[in-house]
């Protein structure tokens, strides 16, 4: 597989144009005791050609946020506030017909769980061909040919033969790559990838990252990449958002996040990454406690019950996301970090 050029020019600030702009999005779930908040007024944005990485604790609302944008939320869960603009149009208000054109066409989606999103009784070649026929008006034969090319692009060996396989006949990583191929099928303007490489080995992960880089640079595609593997996306993304309990707690250019992680939760995450040089006997550090459940968030900072730095104010007021770096590019929602960075 080809390597994409590794060093990208900095995007000039003037050329920036918002592609996706999520404002104050709130997602609630209907429970026996009434509605409970899962995602709490989240703000996210992605510029044209930009790659945004999203990390955060398991269960903090990453997948639901992305699904809500495409109006694919499960039963009993709904958006109660906020908007999600894509290319200037509010996805929440768009007609179903328009939304269908966006889904899988202008916006490619790689779902987290291949086994639940692939149709188990349909050959994968057909599943790949469908969006090509629907969105791009290809004939069946054209779509099959393109489907084979896509499988090759994501590195599946014997691609033409595998078109006729059913999902259960593929390995976990192959299924995941079929999902990636479907997400990329229509050359989307925006690719939303929800943990797209969890089942892939390092060499294929690297190939997929290079493939996405290449498409991004060639087509000007924007990318939202959800992952827990900070090392993997270190060389891919422009910016990282760290989510905790359904809010963004830190938003920073990638270098700033690694050089100067400011939120105590981000610091905890980085400290938990096992290093290749670790000894077996060392215990991995992990953040004590568990994140709040929907409907049981603490009154002040959502991280306060687990935070080693928590002060009185943290239990009383919710910190807002505020700029601390140059030109406000690095933002953090933490009283202590804000104070420290202001003093510096």
């Amino acid at each position: 597989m080809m390597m994409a050029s590794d060093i990208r020019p900095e995007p000039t600030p003037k050329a920036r144009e918002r592609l996706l702009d999520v404002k104050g999005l709130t997602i609630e779930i209907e429970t026996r005791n009434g509605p409970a908040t899962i995602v709490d007024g989240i703000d996210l944005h992605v510029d044209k050609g930009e790659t945004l990485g999203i990390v955060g604790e398991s269960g903090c609302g990453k997948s639901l946020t992305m699904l809500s944008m495409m109006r694919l939320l499960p039963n009993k869960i709904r958006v109660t506030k906020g908007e999600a603009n894509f290319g200037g149009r509010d996805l929440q208000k768009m007609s179903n017909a328009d939304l269908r054109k966006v889904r899988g066409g202008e916006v490619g989606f790689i779902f987290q769980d291949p086994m639940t999103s692939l149709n188990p009784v349909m050959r994968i070649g057909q599943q790949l061909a469908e969006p090509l026929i629907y969105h791009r008006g290809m004939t069946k034969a054209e779509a099959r040919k393109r489907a084979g090319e896509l499988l090759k692009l994501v590195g599946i060996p014997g691609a033409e033969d595998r078109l006729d396989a059913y999902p259960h006949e593929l390995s976990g990583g192959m299924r995941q790559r079929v999902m990636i191929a479907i997400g990329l099928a229509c050359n989307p303007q925006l690719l939303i990838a929800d943990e797209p490489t969890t089942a892939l080995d390092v060499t294929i992960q690297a190939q997929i990252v290079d493939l996405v880089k290449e498409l991004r640079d060639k087509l000007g595609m924007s990318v939202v990449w959800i992952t827990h593997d900070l090392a993997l996306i270190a060389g891919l993304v422009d910016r990282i958002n760290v989510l905790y309990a359904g809010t963004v707690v830190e938003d920073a250019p990638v270098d700033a996040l690694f050089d100067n992680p400011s939120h105590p939760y981000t610091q905890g995450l980085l400290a938990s990454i096992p290093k290749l040089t670790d000894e077996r006997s060392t215990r991995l550090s992990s953040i004590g406690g568990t994140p709040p459940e929907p409907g049981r968030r603490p009154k002040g900072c959502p991280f306060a019950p687990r935070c080693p730095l928590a002060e009185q104010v943290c239990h009383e007021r919710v910190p807002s996301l505020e700029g601390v770096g140059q030109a406000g590019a690095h933002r953090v929602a933490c009283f202590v970090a804000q104070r420290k960075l202001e003093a510096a």
Partner: protein
Amino acid sequence: MGAQPLMRIENLVKHFHVRLGAFGERAATVHALDDISFEILEGETLSLVGESGCGKSTTGFTLLNLHRATEGKVIYQGKNIVELDEKAMRPYRRQLQIVFQDPYSTLNPRMTIGEAVGEPILFHKLATKAELKDRIAMLLADVGLPPRFASRYPHELSGGQRQRVAIARALACQPKFIVCDEAISALDVSVQAQIINLLLDLQQKYGLTYLFIAHDLAVVRHISDRVGVMYLGRLAELATREELFEHPLHPYTKALLSAVPEADPAHERSRKRQILQGDVPSPLSPPSGCRFHTRCPIAMDICSKVVPEWRLARPGHMVACHAVTEGLPG
């Protein structure tokens, strides 16, 4: 390492028969596992790594007799368990557990989390009805889930939460041996660290043995005693953790180790990975001789003709490669 073997795998082969073509008109064979031999020692963590599709999950499934082996033996407690039928297998089922790669497809959607975790406890009579609730709550707490999750259904959980339920369910059986197939790959690093610590604690306390399938080499290095590297249905190399990471012998292992990403943006942007040339061959028609010869940077004439022997090259270090001379007589 003086440990006894818990399981001995001898010349294990697994083929899948599939049908190709738009109407399924062509028959073909997937060579998923070909002639694999190794031992799993009591109380150790043996990891399997290798490219996607190389046969890691198939190894796990076939070892536990969840897929019928095409040929070969798996000796456990003096019995070749892969020739047993489901009834004869029953006494071994509780001891030998697996956490599947795809937890969603293996959790019953109509069973609550509490029922899913409690079912094996009741089935194997590991607790009384009265103790059950506490036992479930304890297992959930071990994997970092609050007790209230017991009343939820699988579709009401996030990906990482489901993965933890699958781990709790395996632990509920108080097994001797667990195949962990990408069991922690969907977890954020903090929860991942918590589960790894838990697995290592349980191992120390109860002498558990793990076959750990994973692609994150930093995690593998952290938890393994020994590591096996697979390529296209065969073992390429198997050695102690230190040997494998400090002294890899097989060209494929070397390429794999060079691809490990690091949490450093500047380094990642500028690095040149040693990405293997050539396409991954298809297990429908694997290459002759050494299966790696189509992509190996140092392949020789003999490599496409003769299957390299699976042999001991250094103490505790097995390898299959014609170019490795260590350990050869003379």
